[in-house]
């Protein structure tokens, strides 16, 4: 499953089982909606970066 394709609820349940979290069926349904919503918006975040593009280790507003 690609990070940026939306999983079905069934696929998401399988992933939830591996999360280490004690989740109710209702939790999983809500989290699925939230995850799908986030993934939809995350297409805005570029996936391809220069291999060495370094994120800020400690964010500095003054640099």
């Amino acid at each position, binding site marked *: 499953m690609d*990070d940026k394709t939306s999983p079905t609820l069934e696929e*998401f349940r399988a*992933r*939830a089982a591996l*999360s*280490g*979290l*004690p*989740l109710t069926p209702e*939790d999983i349904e*809500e*989290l699925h*909606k*939230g*995850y799908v*919503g*986030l993934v939809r*918006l*995350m297409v*805005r*975040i*570029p*996936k391809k*970066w220069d291999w060495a*593009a*370094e*994120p*800020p280790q*400690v*964010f*500095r*507003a*003054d640099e």
Partner: protein
Amino acid sequence: MSKRSSELTTLTIAQAGDLLARREITATALTEAFLARIAAVDHKIASYITVTADLARRAAAQADRELGHGVRRGPLHGIPIALKDIYETEGVLTTGHSHLRKDHVPSVDAETVRRLKAGGAIILGKLATHEFANGAMTPDQPFPAAKNPWNTAYQPGGSSSGSGAAVAAGLCMGAMGSDTGGSIRNPAGFCGIAGIKPTYGLVSRCGIFPLAFSLDTAGPMTWTVEDSALMLDVLAGYDPNDQASAKAPKVDYGAASHRSIKGMRIAFARGWHEDATPDTLKGIDEAVRVLRDLGAIVEEVVFPDLWDYHICGRVIITVEAHAIHRQEVIETPQSFGYTTRRRFQLGAFLTAEQYVSALRFRRQLQLDTRAAMRGYDLILAANQWGPPEPFKEPQPIFHFLDKASFAMPFNVTGQPALTLCCGFGSDSFPLAFQLVGRPFDEASVFAAGAAFERATPWRLHRPSL
């Protein structure tokens, strides 16, 4: 000593400071006036979780002794303030508005609280918040939801909900909030007050419950912009116990709030808020007119898309908040409110690659914003799409999926961002906008904000409770 109680609770910090310094009022009278007002009206808006009346009275008596001997510690000496209940306070309950900390009594003050006390401020108590500065205010939490003093059927905004409500209602002269994705500016706007998210690193977060380390900031919320400047004068400064703390030069923000803004260049991010309500559009256009009349040069500038900042910040918050609260959402998930639990659980489903991509994107947005702002001192942007939400159950779990936040861009870039009132809508709710500076240039932000307030009548209108 002749001022009536209601007159005392509507003074600004600047006005009260002058009267205290001249011994025309006492810190004790001021404190008693606020304690009486809290007792009389706070049941209508539930802004306080804990009122520390005895501690406040002792601190006020101490302030009066010192002021009586001509010792003035600074602009907050004798000034009654209150704290969002995620600020740790020695010997005083600090709950995070959560069952998980409902009996938590810290042994040490947060660094910001230490600075406020050292500056002579009187702490009136601890204020309601969205649970751990994140979840909505829901009935499954141990304390009632704070309400909007302009209309108690509506939310005050959050997460610094009690801070916004208490300042607007005249239940303290200033309050501390925290801002990770808009949590100071959102309630400041909906409650019609001023609030500043300082530059990331300017104010210590040591001793404040974290939400997302790389975005968390702490800042003041007050009735006027000048009062926020006076509070920041006491709060700003390097703290070796906060890894993000910056060694920034000391600035007199109170003095900066009296600077002229003639010739100041302001980049207007008009493109972000074209779909806001007509009242909001009108309020912001009028704010632009006032700033131009004051001599500022305001020009429309195109910034990166609002949704880019929004999703970047949301991914970072979701992952970092999960890391902070993971153990508790595994061990006692039922102890969280139903929105908080799911918001903290969601981060378990994001990957390391997604998080690092968001951090890389953050760097890109920071550079793109700086480039767009080149040649300008400030950015002017909307603060909210329209009026606050009414209370209703159930509340949306993932509230951030429907609308992009006007606040998030400046959490992502780390810049200082001030929210201030620019009038009232046809529904009587306050309107607001943001003024945003270059990193560590809070002085220009305060200069423009305070000049705007002095030129407009909006600080004369208070909610009636």
